[in-house]
């Protein structure tokens, strides 16, 4: 193994009593794409944060190859800066960019080109940034404020920033969770290029097909413990799942639910304009139905959900709930009308990060409780149900949500809306960052809810997910409906075709 450039041995880490990592080891080689996999909270992000100097480890050793002598030397990574200087760079799971600065400033933060000893050379800065942006095929002005970018574009900036470090080891922590297919493709070609330059790429993802597409080796963690490292060629999806969650996942092909009650329209959107210049959109959601909503980034799915939920005003058209015209002006009105919304942006809109898990789960529920006084037992029974249903991995309910792993935070958002027991639940990218095991649990819950008489709109960019749970698929393109397919007739081809604006079957 002459090519080993990073070796981690016996790494342990606890957070306030929770064992996040226990005696874990990992070996990374030059010129490989190495996947880290495992359930939410398995410790993937934590291990990489220890490697790059974000967290300090409690026990264990980290060795890096000395490029001159070729030997593996032990290092104590004291800061992120030191990690960067040692050629280790990480694209974090949670965006770590500055909204108040420009794109270029974000990319070269801490390394701005200067004239003389101090003077910022803005032209050079923008030129360099433009170069990096070209690599990720992001066509934005480097001098524009980051706050004007969509989440996907921000993710691309983050990737561009990572590339600009010219590191030996580049870690991507769930980079595609906010990217669409075309951007993902760009990323993969970048990764392949990096690999051919002899760099090592660590790729953390819950998306099986991605992992098998680009990774050479896969290391699996479970519950903070090292499980195994496999060559991608020598394993398959089912095998991996077994390694990750310790059991098989049964999966039958989705035939749609026979319970959907087509006689009862729960939600009807009539001639609503998503963008000022787009064609008006109409849709019907039936009782006990899961409507999958597919589209490419910018198709306007999130916008539509915002309109229904009362965030953005409705300029044209009407919305009916159970046949009655409604005028929803705020999320409060929406909730009172029985609508719930799991937002796309969990950090900004889904959670109060500094508040406890319990309080986050209850925050929308509270207004439905009869008494203004909080009754401990009542609340506990509500939260208890969902923490176990969704198997949220946590220390206890009073922990701050920000201490949870990314996937578990997402579960809290879902739990919060389930707790509110909406008649109509809109879920915008609900399984973003959630592991395969939990995903299937969430699908089960969604189906169960539909069975109980609720209706769900699931916005998703994951083809597989759309196919797996929807009873009906609706495809949006540039703010208008370009396809509506029953699940029985929906396949990857006709969905994709509609998403690109192809022939609509309205």
């Amino acid at each position, binding site marked *: 193994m002459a090519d080993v450039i990073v070796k981690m041995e016996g790494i342990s880490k606890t957070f306030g009593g929770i064992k996040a990592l226990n005696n874990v080891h990992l070996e990374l080689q030059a010129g490989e794409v190495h996947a880290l996999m495992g359930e939410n909270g398995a410790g993937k992000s934590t291990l990489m944060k220890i490697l790059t100097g974000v967290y300090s480890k409690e026990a264990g050793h980290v060795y890096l190859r000395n490029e001159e002598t070729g030997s593996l030397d032990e290092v104590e990574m004291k800061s992120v800066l030191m990690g960067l200087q040692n050629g280790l760079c990480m694209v974090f799971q949670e965006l770590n960019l500055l909204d108040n600065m420009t794109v270029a400033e974000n990319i070269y933060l801490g390394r701005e080109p200067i004239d003389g000893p101090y003077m910022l050379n803005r032209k050079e800065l923008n030129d360099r940034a433009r170069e990096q942006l070209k690599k990720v095929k992001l066509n934005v002005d480097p001098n524009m404020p980051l706050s004007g970018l969509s989440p996907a574009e921000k993710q691309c900036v983050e990737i561009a920033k990572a590339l600009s470090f010219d590191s030996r080891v580049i870690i991507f922590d769930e980079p595609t969770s906010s990217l669409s297919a075309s951007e993902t493709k760009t990323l993969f070609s970048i990764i392949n290029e990096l690999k051919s330059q002899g760099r090592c790429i660590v790729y953390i993802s819950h998306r099986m097909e991605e992992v098998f597409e680009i990774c050479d080796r896969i290391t699996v963690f479970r519950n903070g413990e090292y499980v195994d490292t496999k060559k991608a060629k020598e394993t398959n999806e089912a095998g991996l799942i077994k390694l990750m969650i310790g059991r098989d996942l049964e999966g039958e092909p989705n035939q749609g639910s026979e319970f959907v009650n087509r006689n009862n329209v729960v939600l009807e959107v009539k001639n609503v304009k998503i963008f000022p210049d787009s064609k008006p959109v109409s849709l019907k959601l039936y009782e006990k139905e899961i409507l999958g909503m597919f589209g490419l980034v910018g198709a306007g799915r999130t916008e539509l959900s915002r309109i229904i939920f009362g965030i953005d005003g409705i300029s044209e058209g009407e919305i009916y709930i159970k046949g009655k015209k409604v005028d929803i002006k705020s999320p409060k009105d929406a909730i009172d009308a029985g609508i719930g919304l799991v937002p796309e942006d969990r950090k900004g*809109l889904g959670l109060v990060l500094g508040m406890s898990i319990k*309080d986050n789960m209850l925050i929308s529920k509270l207004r439905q409780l009869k008494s203004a006084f909080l009754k401990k037992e009542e609340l506990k029974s509500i939260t208890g149900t969902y923490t176990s249903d969704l198997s949220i991995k946590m220390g206890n309910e009073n922990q701050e949500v920000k201490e949870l792993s990314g996937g578990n935070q997402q579960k809290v958002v879902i739990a919060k809306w389930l707790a509110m027991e909406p008649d109509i639940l809109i879920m915008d990218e609900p399984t973003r960052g959630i592991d395969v095991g939990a995903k299937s649990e969430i699908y089960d819950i969604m189906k169960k809810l539909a069975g109980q008489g609720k209706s769900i709109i699931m916005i998703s960019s994951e083809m597989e997910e759309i196919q797996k749970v929807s009873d009906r698929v609706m495809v949006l393109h540039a703010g208008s409906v370009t396809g509506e397919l029953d699940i029985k007739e929906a396949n990857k081809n006709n969905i994709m075709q509609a998403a690109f604006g192809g022939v609509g079957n309205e």
Partner: protein
Amino acid sequence: MNREKVKIGALRELLLVIILIVMCIVWTIMNKNFATVNNVMNILRVASYTAIASVGMTMIIIIGEIDLSAGSLVCVSGLSAALIVKGTNNIVLGIIAALVIGALVGLFNGVVCAIGKLPGFIATLASMTILRGIAYIITGGNSVVWTNQMFSKIGTGYVGPIPVPVLIMIVVVIFGVILTTKIRFGRYIYAVGGNSNASRWSGISVEKVKIIVYVIMGVLTSIAGLIITTRLGSGQPSAGTGFEMDCITAVVVGGTSMAGGKGKVMGTIVGVLLIATLTNGMTLVGIDTYWQQVIKGAIIVVAVLIDSKGKSAN
């Protein structure tokens, strides 16, 4: 696990209490008059009005805002009550007037801040300046003196051995603790302070929460104003200068974060008591007034430092 967390939380609050206890022991050793019922009641009475307004200030800071107008409102609400009692000899009318003025000023602050979308800092800075101006305009710079002895009892009376202001403080603290921990609305305060966008998306009317909290603050401040005025024995257009800083200091020393979303009413009360005890002890021992300031500044830093280290160590 659960038990561990509880312990940590308790220890955290305990640290300030421990500092307070240590301080009390020091003063008891240094001066025989410190640990007397009389003196303790003294400390509590001095702490009472700051504590009352600080309960409101805690909520204000939890929602991520600030109230700089508290000192001026203390003055104007007290003055109005004094003027009415002087004119009509009707105590109830005076008290109601003070509370209504407090609520209205709170409403103004809240509306400018929540609906006008100005930072609370600016909104309340403006009302601070305006109210102080009004105080001088309505009094012409004179003190307002009344003759009704009952009115003075609000600030100076006793129920048994306990001063009336201390009783009022206890009621307000209980109210504050219940509101922030036992009531639905309390959760909204923390949510709004933690992430106002997420709160709005969760169905909370962020504007309403902010306005209500400012109104509560206004009413509590005017209660403090009534106590201060009746305690001083006359309405003064200069009363309450710097009072808002005393409250903010107590809140922050008590562990509430200026960033919003976090804090506890009980912590604030410990903060108020800490500062009141410190001042009382230093005066009893006969430390020079300006040395008191130096020591006070130093002790605040040290106390908060110990407290925050204790927190992060866990």
